[in-house]
């Protein structure tokens, strides 16, 4: 029987079939559904770890005992987990460890488009790259067997398009590995697992030798295969890009790489000899291309196919046609003659983050930010966040800004999930090193941005079991914060007063802005009513950027389907023209 699965669901199904017993991740688009789906299999213990590094350590621990383990993360999560990737490359493991790494070419929902094939090369571990959901399922098994055979973590690279496309998967379970319920014994082995210099020096040659053995394996591995065709053009490609290339070059000879690190040297040399013109088609970095060129081969690569952005069959056709590699021209599409306004994401109707950013804007604060729904506070008309680099950056950045002294008000903002991910350490820095900053935590009691995952502050685990909530206020006070305020973002006057006092003070302070995400709890109150007589159409309410508010000819209208009745617009109206129903 076949079923349509997304790439991420297929990874999880593959993990189930391969007898994985532990799966850990921190959410991040486009990787989130991998471990979320693992949680549905009762043979897999699955968890949301507080960040990617912890997730990888947890998976490494399980693999050290001999069990099969998986961890998953988005590409930038690998930056956080990199330390653990590098040491586990040296120590190896006992059970299989597969790391699902999701790149995001085109930055559908990321702050950069780094190409994490570089990490496989950097950490000297193998990397596989499937091209559809069926391969996603199968490669997890291949990765785990390779991991055990070669005593190495194995990475699998996916991209947004693979992770979020649904393609057919054979659901046959007859070859499933049934996980053992024997209690594993941890086998102590200090020279292998304690990476002090003396031991690590002995491990490094093991790593280099392993890489050579893997390179030899790459020559014969059946996931690296040649699809014979017309040898005028020979294409080397991998991943979902293979599918685009196959479609645009229906008759070309293709070397489809299922393993993108280490690369099969002899296979590539033979392939180059066989075809007239060698073409490498790969998204993002010239990773395969550089390898090919180091072998002394000539090829077409980034001179034709862009180094940035997501590929598509349209793009590959367009640039291949321009480079005279194909004869079928791209469709002749005429431009639209009307202007189509963009539809950028924005804070939801009634979102509690809105009140905070409205207050920060009115206080004219330079806001050092972070990643989460609250990053949308940077979007117009609020435009009240002024930096966003990566998770956990804001608290450290504001400390630097404040330490050198800067004119005007400053503050930093991050969310509850981000606080647990990487916000505690920079807070320690501010508190211990005599900082003066105001650190704001928007505690909406959920990891909202990535689709509402639980976190240590929510009191629920990924497996749906209640857990002891970690109370942010207690943590912050435990770190030594003297001034800790908790405010409700809908009580604008209070938020303004508290922020002003905290920011203008010479002491460090922590402000917890607490209200559960209205989208998560589906909160709805009666919709406010606009008094058309009193409304002067001044536009003040529109400045909070709430989607249901629309400017009409003479007054502002509220879309009652979209509105959740939070009443913030009524709070900010200077003419008392918007009334909450209970006020009428």
């Amino acid at each position: 029987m076949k079923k349509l699965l997304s790439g991420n669901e297929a990874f999880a199904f593959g993990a189930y079939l391969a007898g994985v017993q532990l799966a850990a991740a921190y959410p991040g688009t486009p990787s989130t559904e991998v471990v979320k789906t693992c949680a549905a299999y009762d043979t897999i213990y699955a968890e949301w770890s507080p960040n990617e590094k912890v997730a990888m350590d947890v998976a490494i621990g399980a693999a050290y005992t001999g069990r099969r383990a998986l961890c998953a993360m988005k590409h930038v999560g690998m930056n956080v987990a990199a330390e653990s990737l590098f040491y586990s490359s040296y120590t190896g493991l006992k059970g299989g460890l597969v790391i699902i790494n999701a790149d995001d070419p085109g930055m559908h929902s990321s702050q950069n488009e780094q190409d994490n094939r570089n990490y496989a090369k950097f950490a000297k571990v193998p990397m596989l790259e499937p091209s559809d959901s069926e391969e996603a399922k199968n490669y997890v098994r291949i990765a785990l067997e390779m991991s055990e055979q070669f005593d190495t973590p194995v990475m699998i690279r996916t991209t947004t398009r693979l992770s979020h496309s649904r393609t057919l998967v054979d659901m046959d379970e007859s070859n499933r590995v049934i996980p053992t319920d024997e209690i594993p014994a941890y086998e102590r082995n200090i020279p292998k697992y304690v990476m002090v210099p003396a031991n690590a020096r002995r491990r490094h040659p093991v790593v280099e030798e392993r890489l050579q053995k893997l390179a030899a394996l790459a020559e014969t591995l059946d996931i690296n295969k040649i699809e014979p065709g017309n040898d005028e053009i020979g294409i080397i490609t991998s991943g979902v890009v293979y599918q685009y290339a196959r479609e645009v070059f229906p008759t070309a000879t293709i070397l489809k790489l299922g393993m993108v690190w280490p690369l099969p040297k002899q296979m590539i040399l033979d392939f180059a000899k066989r075809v007239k013109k060698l073409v490498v088609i790969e998204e993002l970095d010239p990773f395969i291309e550089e390898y090919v060129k180091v072998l002394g081969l000539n090829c077409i690569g980034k001179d034709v196919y862009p180094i940035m952005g997501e590929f598509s069959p349209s793009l590959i056709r367009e640039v291949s046609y321009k480079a005279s590699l194909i004869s079928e021209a791209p469709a002749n599409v005429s431009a639209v003659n009307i202007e189509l306004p963009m539809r950028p994401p924005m804070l939801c109707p009634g979102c509690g983050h809105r009140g905070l950013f409205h207050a920060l804007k009115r206080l004219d604060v330079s806001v050092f930010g972070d990643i989460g729904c609250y990053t949308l506070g940077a979007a117009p008309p609020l435009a009240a966040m002024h930096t966003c680099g990566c998770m956990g950056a804001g608290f450290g950045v504001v400390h630097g800004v404040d330490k050198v002294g800067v004119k005007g008000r400053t503050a930093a903002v991050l969310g509850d999930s981000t606080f647990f991910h990487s916000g505690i350490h920079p807070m320690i820095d501010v508190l211990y090193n005599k900082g003066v900053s105001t650190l704001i935590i928007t505690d909406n009691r959920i990891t909202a941005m990535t689709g509402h995952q639980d976190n240590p502050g929510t009191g629920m685990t990924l497996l749906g079991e209640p857990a002891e909530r970690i109370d942010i206020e207690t943590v912050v006070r435990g770190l030594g914060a003297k001034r800790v305020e908790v405010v409700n973002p809908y009580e604008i006057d209070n938020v303004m007063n508290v922020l002003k006092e905290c920011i203008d003070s010479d002491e460090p302070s922590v402000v917890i802005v607490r209200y559960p995400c209205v989208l998560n709890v589906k909160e709805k109150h009666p919709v406010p009513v606009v008094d058309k007589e009193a409304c002067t159409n001044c536009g003040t309410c529109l400045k909070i950027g709430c989607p249901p508010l629309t400017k009409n000819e003479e007054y502002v209208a509220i879309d009652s389907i979209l509105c959740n009745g939070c009443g913030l617009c009524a709070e900010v109206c200077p003419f008392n023209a918007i009334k909450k129903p209970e006020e009428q």
Partner: protein
Amino acid sequence: MRNKIDFIVAGVGGQGTILASDILVEVGYKAGYDVKKSEVHGMSQRGGGVESQVRWGKKVYSPLIEKGKAEFVLGFEMLEAARWTEYLNPSSVVYVNKHKMFPPTVSTGQAVYPAESAIEEELKFRAQHFEWIDAIGLAQQLGNPALAGVIMLGRLSADLEIAPEIWLNVISDLVPARFVELNKKAFITGRELKG
């Protein structure tokens, strides 16, 4: 069976485009096609656009459709439909839900929502057939605006040589049990729109 049929389903987060495209891809599979579906929903919950691409064929490689090669565009919202003109060709068919959802730039008065007639014209002259569907109106008559997507599918189904039972079975499989009857009704309502 045709060689291939490519569909684009475009709308705004929360409009049911993902359910509709899930139904569409499943129907193709049940009807004997190789199928793939791709969707981008990164920020959809925050009011952004949602696009799904569904492909049926003898053998489908890419999950993405090439520009100029879509057989059908289903627009769940007028402006979102208009973004897909590049995917049309003179034999394409376009159905658009006659429904506007203002993006923030429009509601705050910084940008103008294009005129209905302009959107119609742009889509009409590139396609073989263009049709407005009052899907929201019909859905409200059935008691729930969320049914609009399945009404759109119903209209589409009338152009495809696939037994209605296949559609209805897939709808029963994918829709929560208590909404199945209503969704089947919505599907039939859409299917009967074909003049």
